[in-house]
């Protein structure tokens, strides 16, 4: 048995230390940094301003304005099982960037040390910190063997992307979306909005109008991306919405694995996060997209926290395209998120693995949509929902077999785990089958954390909270195994941390 499988099997030593040494939200500190803000609120002027700040071409501004015009006509969706507080969209900042980023710093000395310190606290190594902080030439510093390229988004702007040159050698484009709009307009024009149209839904449309930055990836035909790509999102500024937009295009026969992490400071007031992720997958290509979402969940009484309204969709546009979504959702006061797969190409396949943890007063309404359009398409859904405290956790999923999607198959497994007697777990599966050669399977279970299991662990010397983490990590094992190594470790400790205070 190797060390690797050992770590994947459950909680490891570091997790245990993490749990014991940490407060309930590790990333709750804020960085005091001089920020440049656009005025509060959203209007056509603000949309123009954001476009201008990013130095965008005319076509991009037009696209944003179309979205804005549509958004003002739209209403917030109400179908989710969420107790949604009224959001005042005019009381938010839609654009904030560290002042030090206005001019690119030339050396480490010129970088705002607080920005560097932020990344250090987040555990990003120094050389990467330099690159993230935008130090020119930092990429040429002899880098140790690293396998993950990082794009970091701080409030509204991308503050740096690492390993660009090494990736460029392989022909992979990995940069901020604002840069892509300028440098690769033909790709952005062709694919932006092609999976999630400007008018898709209330939050996606708002994002289309006012997204400030995000990441762009293009993997050329036949290329296996030489390293994992990662975007790190952090909301720092108060009353600021984060609206990032990610576009990933994986050309014929290519492969990429993409990781996304998120944190935010602890604040009394709620903050809005409305992101859009679009993935285009062409013939025989494969994309793995993993998220560890750890936005501030609000405090024990349910004050503050991030409202997370995210539209994520992958389009398996051509035959044999493959996509795999893996998400670990532990943060946010409210989560509204349904990473979906459009299985358009014949023989294409989509997988969705999810762990959603809701503790205290958190609310999560999350799941996936598997839209089978092509023949012989396959999908698999494994969802693990954990509710503790007063939280409500809903799995909402759609499996749709269209008339042309002959001989297609879906397998869905939804397991819910309850900790305590004041929380709720809900499963809302929608199934539509419009041909008679396809097969859909749905299995669901609901259980409580077993006292016997906890006592057994404790009788062996494992403390109560660690015992809960151990049992819950076991419950989530199928999904944790789907995550890349680095993320699996982080996810395990997050599971433990987010359940702190849920027993006893």
């Amino acid at each position, binding site marked *: 048995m190797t060390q690797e499988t050992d770590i994947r099997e459950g909680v490891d030593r570091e997790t245990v230390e993490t749990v014991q040494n940490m407060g309930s939200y590790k990333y709750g500190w804020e960085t005091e940094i001089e920020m440049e803000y656009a005025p509060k609120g959203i209007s056509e002027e603000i949309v123009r301003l954001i476009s201008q700040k990013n130095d965008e071409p005319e076509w991009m501004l037009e696209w944003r304005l179309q979205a804005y015009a549509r958004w003002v006509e739209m209403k917030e969706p109400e179908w989710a099982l969420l107790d949604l507080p009224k959001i005042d969209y005019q009381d938010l900042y839609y654009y904030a960037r560290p002042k030090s980023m206005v001019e690119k710093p030339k050396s480490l000395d010129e970088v705002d040390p607080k920005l560097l310190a932020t990344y250090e606290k987040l555990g990003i190594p120094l050389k990467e910190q330099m690159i993230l902080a935008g130090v020119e030439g930092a990429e040429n510093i002899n880098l140790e063997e690293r396998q993950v390229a990082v794009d970091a988004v701080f409030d509204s702007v991308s503050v740096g992307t690492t390993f660009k040159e090494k990736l460029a050698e392989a022909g992979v484009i990995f940069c901020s979306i604002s840069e892509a709009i300028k440098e690769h307009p033909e790709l952005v024009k062709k694919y932006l909005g092609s999976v999630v149209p400007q008018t898709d839904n209330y939050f996606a449309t708002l994002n289309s109008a006012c997204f400030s930055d995000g990441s762009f990836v293009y993997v050329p035909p036949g290329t296996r991306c030489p390293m994992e790509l990662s975007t790190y999102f952090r909301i720092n500024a108060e009353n600021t919405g984060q609206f990032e937009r990610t576009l990933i295009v994986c050309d014929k026969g290519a492969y990429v694995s993409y990781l996304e992490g998120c944190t935010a400071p602890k604040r009394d007031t709620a903050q809005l996060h409305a992101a859009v992720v679009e993935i285009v997958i062409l013939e025989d290509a494969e994309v793995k997209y993993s998220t560890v979402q750890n936005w501030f969940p609000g405090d024990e009484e349910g004050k503050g926290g991030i409202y997370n309204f995210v539209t994520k969709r992958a389009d398996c546009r051509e035959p044999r395209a493959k996509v795999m979504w893996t998400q670990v959702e532990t943060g946010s006061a409210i989560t509204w998120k349904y990473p979906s797969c459009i299985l358009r190409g014949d023989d294409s396949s989509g997988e969705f693995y999810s762990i959603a943890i809701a503790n205290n007063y958190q609310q999560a309404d999350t799941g996936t949509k598997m839209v089978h359009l092509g023949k012989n398409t396959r999908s698999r859904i494994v969802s693990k929902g954990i509710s503790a405290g007063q939280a409500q956790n809903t799995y909402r999923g759609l499996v749709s077999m269209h008339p042309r999607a002959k001989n297609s198959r879906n397998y869905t497994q939804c397991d819910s785990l309850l900790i305590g007697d004041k929380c709720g777990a809900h499963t809302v599966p929608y199934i539509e089958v419009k041909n008679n050669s396809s097969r859909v399977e749905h299995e669901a279970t609901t259980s409580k954390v077993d006292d016997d299991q906890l006592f057994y662990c404790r*009788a062996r010397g494992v403390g109560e909270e660690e015992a809960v983490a151990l049992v819950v990590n076991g*419950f989530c094992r199928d999904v944790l195994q789907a995550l890349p190594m680095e993320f699996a470790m982080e996810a395990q400790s997050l599971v433990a941390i987010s359940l702190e205070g849920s027993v006893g």
Partner: protein
Amino acid sequence: MLEIKNLHVKLEDEDKVILKGMNLTVETGKVHAIMGPNGSGKSTMSYVLSGRDGYEVTDGSAKLGDTELLDLEPEERAAAGLFLAFQYPVEIPGVGNMTFLRTALNAQRKARGEEELSAGEFLKLVRAKAKTLKIDADMLKRPVNVGFSGGEKKRNEILQMAMLEPKMCILDETDSGLDVDAMRLVADGVNALRSPDRSFLVITHYQRLLDHIKPDVVHIMADGRILQTGGPELALEVEKNGYAEILAAHGLTEAK
């Protein structure tokens, strides 16, 4: 090593009294056996000592060395050196046996202020122990007790005991549900762990386990207390004549 004095225990939710002034002393390095009819309070005693919820101690004490066990959380009792081999070992789906062992061992080491074992050190140790106990490497990889046969579950308890190296081991009907061969394997494991620093309290219904794990002292328990204490011959006597005579001598009937 273990000193139980005048222990009175009732169920937390009911008025049912289970232990009624139990006294028991197990010396360091000795093996004591407790036998007794069903419902005599043997398993309750083991649960109360290890700290399971649902019981209320109304009087008495239970000390491990100088430590009062009843004041401690279950995990603190384990770190202090108490080990209970469960009558029904619990399944924990998705948690690898190795992970479980390592988490438990390091939690105890940490609680005692000792250095935690690295993955490499742990692996070496667990492999060596498994080999001594003739435990298949495959059993280490599977989730804790999930899909284990009765014999495998009990052997897994002994492996945990071997890894955690407790001072005081309580075996709660470890022979229940085992065939003769499995029982011998388990007993061999226990015997391999006998040492001058380690004490055992073996709870059993049957003399046959005591053929393999030879006790120094045998107690007969009924009605929530120890009725009689003697040498190994007491177990043989019970095997031959049943409990009726002993119970009658204390004014109790067997059908109780």
